[in-house]
């Protein structure tokens, strides 16, 4: 019963927060424009979180997100310029390349994946900043896609695909098995490294998509493009009650619920007009509360 209740916390948190803001903002929260904005705002993080969930399921953390996002943007721009379709395709390609690079470092180089990701984050950010220092990368044309329908479409495709692959294919199921017991997975005849690599590639693809959405939102690429993406994604996943050590307890819904909690809270607090000195405190308290109650503690059972 207690376990069941714990699992409910993120969902309950989302619903309670939704109702709270629905009733305390004089209807500002429930306007169509605001709800549309919420979907658009959460899209970048949610897309990246869906991919990251695959990596987390096999018990790795991908820290490359922000840097990889900036890197794919910059490299794609240098090749494609203002050619939007080509730019988007290249973003995905470079995103996947970034993911494969992390996987290579992690698997062949035997480096913990979060460190490999961290390297990529700094390298990507560095490249983006030095290119941005000498190149003006305005992409005004991309801004025309900054509308609810495009974002809704992308979100729907990514979330549905992510959900299906995660729950109903070998790719997703093996990630969870690897996260639960890598040795047993290998001895069950599953190519652990290959499936880990696939997870990183999926994560990379979503980074690429997130990069496209970022460019559509900002109409330009700057040194700071995609800043804090990794922390936002990890925070969102934690809020969604994801299992930090991966394995069978990893659920795709964490990505969706967590991201929504994150952005609804941000939105709601602004609608309240809360004093900025308290915003971070309120957020911290709420995050702590949610995560404390909902986080999967099965990995601590042995100690306790």
């Amino acid at each position: 019963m207690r376990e069941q209740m714990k699992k409910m916390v993120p969902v309950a948190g989302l619903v309670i927060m939704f109702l709270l803001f629905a009733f305390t903002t004089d209807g500002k929260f429930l306007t169509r424009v605001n709800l549309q904005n919420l979907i658009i705002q959460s899209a970048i993080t949610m897309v990246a979180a869906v991919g990251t969930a695959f990596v987390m399921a096999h018990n790795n953390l991908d820290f490359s997100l922000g840097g990889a996002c900036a890197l794919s943007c910059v490299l794609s721009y240098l090749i494609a310029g203002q050619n939007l379709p080509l730019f988007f395709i290249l973003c995905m390609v470079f995103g996947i390349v970034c993911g494969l690079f992390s996987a290579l470092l992690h698997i062949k180089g035997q480096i913990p994946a979060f460190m490999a990701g961290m390297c990529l984050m700094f390298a990507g950010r560095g490249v983006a900043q030095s290119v941005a220092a000498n190149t003006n990368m305005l992409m005004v044309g991309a801004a025309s896609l900054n509308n609810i329908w495009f974002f809704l479409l992308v979100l729907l495709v990514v979330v549905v695909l992510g959900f299906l692959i995660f729950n109903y294919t070998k790719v997703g199921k093996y990630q969870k098995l690897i996260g639960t017991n890598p040795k047993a997975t290998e001895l069950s005849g599953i190519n652990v490294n290959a499936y880990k690599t696939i997870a990183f590639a999926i994560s990379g693809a979503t980074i690429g998509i997130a990069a496209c959405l970022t460019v559509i939102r900002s109409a330009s690429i700057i040194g700071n493009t995609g800043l804090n993406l990794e922390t936002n994604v990890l925070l969102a996943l934690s809020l969604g009650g994801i299992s930090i050590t991966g394995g069978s307890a990893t659920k795709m819904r964490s990505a969706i619920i967590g991201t929504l909690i994150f952005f609804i809270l941000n939105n709601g607090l602004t609608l309240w007009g809360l004093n900025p000195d308290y915003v971070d405190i309120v957020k911290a308290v709420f995050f702590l509360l949610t995560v404390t109650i909902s986080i999967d503690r099965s990995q601590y059972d042995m100690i306790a």
Partner: protein
Amino acid sequence: MEEIILKAENMFKEFGATKAVSDVTLELRKGCVLGLVGENGSGKSTLSSMIAGVYPPTKGVMTYKGEEYRPKSVLDARKAGIQYLTQEQGTIDGMTVAENMFLGEEDQMSKMGNVSIKKLNLLARKILDENGMNYVNPKAMVETYSFEDRKMIETARALSHQPAILIIDETTTALSQKGRERIYEIIFEQKKAGTAIVIISHDLDEVQKLCDEVLIMRDGVYVDTLKGDEINAHNMREKMIGRTMEGSYYRGDFECTYEDEVVLEVKDLSVWGIFSDVSFELHKGEILGIGGLSECGMHELLKTVFGAIRPTSGSVTLVQNQVALKNTTVSVKNKVAYIPKDRDKESLFQPTSIKDNIVASSYDKIKKGFFIKPSDEKKLADEQAKKIEVKMQNIEQLIRDLSGGNKQKVVIAKWIANESQIFIMDCPTRGIDIGVKAKIYKLMDTLKHEGISILMVSEEMMELIGMADRIITMKDGRLSKEFTRSKDLSESTIISAIV
């Protein structure tokens, strides 16, 4: 009758709704060896854990040396002179041997809060030498030693305290013949010194050999106490299961029966420093047993055959399609199954359900296109679990809640679901109570008659003699002898080939 040192009266222990122990009374006497036997889940470990201070009883009174005894923790019990050796690893990796030996007792070793490492090491050295373990370096990290050595280090630590009561819970299960012999010696020495000893074991021969008295439990309830001549495997088995065993325990026949067709060919296989030049052939419908001491390289040999360890030289080939088993993926794709010795660490996905464990290797079989239908998963898992009679509520039950025997059944079900044709089994009945053990033997026999080949490593000689068509023995990383199935094959013949 010797003096009673500990009396536990009307002990109860409940975990939630589960009654692990109900109204059991037990007496421990100086210099007496008491055997606690029962199937898995019968409550014998729970009972001894209460004495060792692992958890307090729900009800019941313990009297120790004439006073009421209520240990708050294992350390508490240790201080009182009760030492507990478990089947689990009791040492902590990342610390030295000496640090492990005095864990929790640093207070007595320290001056002003500073533990003197030097003193610690010296004392550890002394204790190790007393126990004939002069090859162990107290300053070395404990994980650099084998499981067996670590177990012996733990034992040495326990003995150094001159315990009044020594509880040995399944400790011998994971040990090789040599390690067991050493434990037996220790038991005799301690017995002479007047220590009360409790032995919990599945190995009934062991119990018969060592114990003065045997207390039998079933489903948390006291069944009977056997003394002297009453103690024999047959009696114990009957009382444990609560019915008379029918038919034979192992295979019924003593014929060496297999087809001429060779399915798997191992040629000059070597892993540097572990084993070398191993060659053998596995036939269709054959149970091929490999016996030896724990460190002879046989466990690694099985892993290498399965493709989990890369050999230095040599080859493993499936004869039918001439495929080399170079990694586990190729092996499983070609219907080769592997059941590791360390069930919990290497073959089970503990926090997942029975279903997830059974279907883990069969997704390729049930997927339709790119996707896997949950109903297909359920169907396959349900079929297999029922076929092999896994004791469970339903297939969604978590694997970690099952007993050892049932866990092993799930592992076997996984490979049957996968339609494996060759089974590589490393100690398939390790730590399993006899009820399930018999079922697993029967299952192996059934598989054999379906034309499936089994390559089995075992540390129990009786198991090899009882099940295998051929037995190959290994010694120091090389094959030493080969025996063919026969009624006359005795345990000592095989032991002489492996030591």
